[in-house]
């Protein structure tokens, strides 16, 4: 479960995030939409305690992230926009290392099981990460989430730069995690993918959450219209 309460981040006079309040329960996928600089990544960084809030609180599974910076990370998995792993280690080794330092001691067969579950092709298990595509690295990231038995998933632009097939695969993986009761926060520009995978959708602008929808209640074209309206977009008249 992800909870934020009046979360605010200021950089001098500039407000990066303004009174952001949100709850994402188990099995929910919340997609944050918004232009660059709207505050999506700031929200994720605050939840990871990579930056400290100016005011307000954020908690993971009911634990405050500022007060319990290490404990809260045991519950979450973070997949940054460009997930980087140790290029000279294989997929299995990377998974072993990251789940290992997170406190999960696993056998090679169970590690391979998680990679398989995350959809990585079997012949890539013992190959070095250096040659992996972004989609393949993300699958390893999902495998880390599975291995950690994660409760919370934080995703920053996971589908940017993925081809439609890889993007679709990724969506299916999120569904799988959702069924395990994982609470997911996903920042994205990809309206289509958001509509596909999300249970809830929020639109941000200038650090403020402007609109929220339940995904099933809104069509893709309506979502696009609302998004453009929020951005004060004037349609070009051709």
């Amino acid at each position, binding site marked *: 479960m992800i909870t934020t309460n009046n979360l605010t981040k200021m950089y001098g006079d500039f407000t990066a995030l303004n009174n952001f309040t949100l709850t994402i329960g188990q099995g929910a996928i919340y997609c944050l939409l918004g232009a660059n600089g709207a505050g999506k990544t700031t929200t994720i960084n605050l939840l990871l305690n990579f930056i400290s809030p100016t005011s307000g609180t954020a908690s993971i599974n009911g634990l405050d992230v500022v007060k319990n910076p290490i404990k809260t990370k045991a519950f979450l998995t973070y997949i940054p926009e*460009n997930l980087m792993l140790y290029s000279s280690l294989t997929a299995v080794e990377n998974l072993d*290392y990251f789940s*290992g330092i997170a406190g999960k001691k696993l056998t090679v067969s169970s590690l391979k099981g998680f990679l398989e579950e995350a959809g990585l092709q079997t012949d890539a298990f013992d190959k070095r990460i250096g040659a992996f595509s972004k989609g393949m690295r993300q699958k390893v990231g999902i495998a880390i989430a599975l291995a950690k038995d994660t409760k919370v998933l934080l995703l920053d632009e996971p589908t940017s730069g993925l081809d439609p097939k890889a993007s679709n695969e990724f969506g299916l993986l999120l569904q799988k995690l959702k069924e395990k009761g994982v609470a997911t926060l996903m920042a994205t520009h990809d309206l289509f993918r958001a509509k596909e995978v999300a249970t809830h959708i929020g639109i941000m602008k200038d650090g403020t959450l402007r609109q929220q929808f339940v995904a099933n209640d809104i069509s893709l074209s309506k979502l696009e219209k609302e998004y453009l309206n929020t951005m004060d977009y004037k349609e070009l008249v051709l």
Partner: protein
Amino acid sequence: MFSYNFKYELKLLFRSRWIQLLSLILLLLFGFSTFNGKQKVEKRKSVIAMAHDEVRENDTKMLKLLDSLQRGMEVSASPWTLPTRPMAVGNYYPRVAAMEPQPMAFVSTGQADLFTHFVKPTATANDFAMNFTEMTSPVQLLFGSFDLAFVIVYLLPLLIIAFSYNVLSAEKESGTLRLLAAQPISIPNWVLQKLGLRFFWMAVLVIVALTIVLLIMGIDILAEGKLYLVLLAMVLGYMLFWFVLAFLVNLWIGSSAKNAVAMLGLWVLFVLMVPSVLNQLGNTIYPMPSRTLMINEMRELKAEVTKKQDEILDNYLRDHPEYAINDTTQKRSFWHRYMASQHLIKRELEPVVNTYEEQLKKQQRLVGRLKWVSPALTMQESLNKLAGTSTSDYESFRAQVVTFAETWREHFMPFLYNNQEFSSQDYSNLPKFQLTQQSFSPAVAFWPLLLISLGLLSLGLLLSKKGHQKFNLISS
């Protein structure tokens, strides 16, 4: 976390070929420097052995001559060189006062290229003019020797810097840090473990490489087991210091390039700047009086003394009545007057000459107190001490030789002033030089280095806890 770091750090180091490269570099550096050091020690040993052989040869000749003379035979040598004359023995058959290399002398050249390792003081030798410097090309003295101490003090820290400057920043630059920081671990702790492991592996490589090199070079490390362990402990203490610095720089400074510049700046500071500034400080606070002015003083005294030699001899004999009691002839020759004058000159000049040794001792004390400012300096000094090539080793040798020269001279005075001939019975009574080595307490260098390192480390950990470092994850 530790067991995973342990397992994967080694894998990563192997796959990035760091371990292989480092082993090769260490073997080469240790090999070349030990080879140089050993060559120097061997040359030193052979030169001293040759000097001893020469003395033995001359002694045999002298005993033969004495034997012939005592049996009243005619010999074909200039009368003043005959060994029945005590001053001839004192001047033409001197003993070797040598400074044999210590077992670990190959470690550091220290002052060994500057000073000579044996002198043969004669009875008329002027203690102050005795030349203890070696005939080395000054260019060589300027450049110094590529010895093990150079590798350890100068190059090892650079290897450590190259090995550790970007432990954290490389993760940031390659993007893995975001994933790491999202794990339930403390980043300072993680950096500490990584560096600790690198320290461990480098220590293993250093110990193994050094041991292999020494065994190949035929240096019996088992026989000198204790000293060898002391050497290893000092090296590890010194390495620890640089790893701790790397830890602090990794935590506080941002990018790899900045880290490298900062580490290098520290290297320049500790290895190049602090020693030269301290040297300058020592020379300014305790300046050496001018040697040229000392020469002037000595010359004036000498000129004065030669003018009143007879008077001086009378005074001298009045002070030393024991020298002439058994002599009935009371014959006085050149040597009688000369030795009495020398005695006077020596006594008069002693305070002037002593100022040099005293100033040097004061400078040394100052350095001893301040050397902790730079671990490089501490290390060099301790390695020199271990090798027996430090300034104080040579200082002690000089002092002992001067004492021996005195003993040697005094040994012939009763012969001279009693006008007594030297005979083969007196041969076995000739004084011999025996060097007492300075005692070296090995713990001196290791514990303070360890203390400095641990102090810095705990300071770093404390500040990193208080400061809530965020490691600039956002702007990578």
